[in-house]
């Protein structure tokens, strides 16, 4: 084995990304818990972890940039570093979504409890499961697990659409519940984004391990490739 120093740098990069992943996963779980028990002290923890996530995002990007500039990686190493850069950005946005949810929980503190036609905990469980599985796929370079994550996204999208439909109906018909419904709608939207970031991470794992770009398969199939036309 040659390029030992380079291989160690790749291992360090992976380790730092896993620290970032742990923080992001924890942040989303805490935000959901804060919603469930309406506990503002948990919201404070989410805010603090967002700062740590932002700092790590910059460190990881810098380390990846250094490796690209100094080591000129090829093939699987190049794909790994590109995937790390993209996963890093997705994890930072998971942290943003966690903060956005905890901000909603804060604004709900003074509002009366309402029985809304939306199952946020169920949606949160599914989105968090997608994040956990996508990170597991990254840790183990497991593309079968990554592909499982891709199949889960439709369910979260459907839940978000259903939440939109039922909550806008509540806003229209029961105006006194509109603030609560709006908050729930924004939380639903953020959970849907978390699921999208987990999907992106899973796609990046597949690209890293297999070299296959599986992004936007469904939508690209529906329109002809302009570059392939004569």
């Amino acid at each position, binding site marked *: 084995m040659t*390029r030992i120093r380079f291989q160690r740098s790749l291992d360090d990069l992976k380790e730092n990304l896993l620290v970032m992943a742990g923080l992001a996963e924890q942040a989303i779980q805490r935000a959901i818990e804060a919603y469930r028990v309406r506990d503002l002290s948990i919201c404070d923890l989410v805010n603090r972890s967002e700062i740590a996530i932002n700092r790590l995002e910059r460190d990881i990007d810098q380390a990846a940039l250094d490796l690209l500039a100094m080591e000129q990686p090829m*093939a699987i190493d*190049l*794909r790994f570093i590109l995937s790390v850069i993209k996963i890093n950005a997705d994890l930072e946005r998971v942290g943003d979504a966690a903060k956005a949810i905890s901000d909603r929980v804060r604004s709900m503190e003074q509002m009366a409890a309402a029985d809304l036609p939306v199952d946020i905990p169920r949606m949160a469980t599914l989105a968090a499961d997608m994040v956990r599985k996508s990170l597991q796929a990254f840790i183990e370079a497991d593309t079968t697990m990554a592909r499982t994550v891709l199949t889960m996204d439709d369910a979260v999208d459907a839940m978000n659409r259903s939440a939109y439909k039922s909550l806008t109906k509540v806003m229209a018909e029961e105006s006194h519940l509109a603030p609560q419904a709006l908050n729930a709608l924004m939380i639903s939207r953020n959970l849907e984004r978390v699921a999208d970031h987990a999907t992106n991470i899973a796609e990046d794992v597949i690209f890293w391990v297999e070299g296959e770009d599986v992004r936007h398969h469904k939508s690209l199939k529906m329109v002809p490739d302009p570059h392939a036309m004569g």
Partner: protein
Amino acid sequence: MGVGIEVVNLNAWYAANHTLQDINLNIPANHATALIGPSGCGKSTFVRCLNRMHETNPIARVTGTVRIGDLDIYKDAKPVEIRRRVGMVFQRPNPFPTMSIYDNVAAGLKLNGYGNRHVLDEIVEKSLKNSALWEEVKDDLKKKSGASLSGGQQQRLCIARALAVDPEVLLMDEPASALDPVSTSKIEDLIFQLKTQYTIVIVTHNMQQAARVAEKTGFFLNGRMVEFDSTHKIFTNPSDKRTEDYITGRFG
């Protein structure tokens, strides 16, 4: 214009050492094709088989077929004729040290019987322009010797000398490995321009250079060609584990 090269079941030996084994590939016309691999893998021997230089060594032997365009070089042609159609540039620039810049470029033409001064002037100017050296030497063509130029200029002089006899194929055996980054960049820009007119085969240890200049890349290992594909594929997602291990620096 460049022509394609077809290699079928090519085998080469140095005495009992079987240095190239069953090489089959098609090198496309008017493209740059890079050959990479660890030292001793056979890539330089391979390019020397493309202009019959390998057999100039008395202990060397070749079997198989190499077609340059429609010419079967081991069947239909004499080595001198082949070397006119297939130019070669080596790792270290090797201008004729006592000859002027002009005579260095004109040497191959004179050897091929060109005597008309006017024609020679035209070809020397065109070749030096094509090798991106004209502007730097046009005032000293007959005053300065080839050896008085810098390393990078000498290499471009050697490229001009190769181009002067109007070849179809240009073989380059690590043409920039002895040059500084600025001269290397000039040679790479030159390869980019020349491939519109010639078929270029370049042996290089510098994988970034292969990635920059070549559309196709072949990976050689232990006398065999492990993988031949688009440069994009080889450097982002090679099919063979051995190629990946080599280009990622896990061996070699």
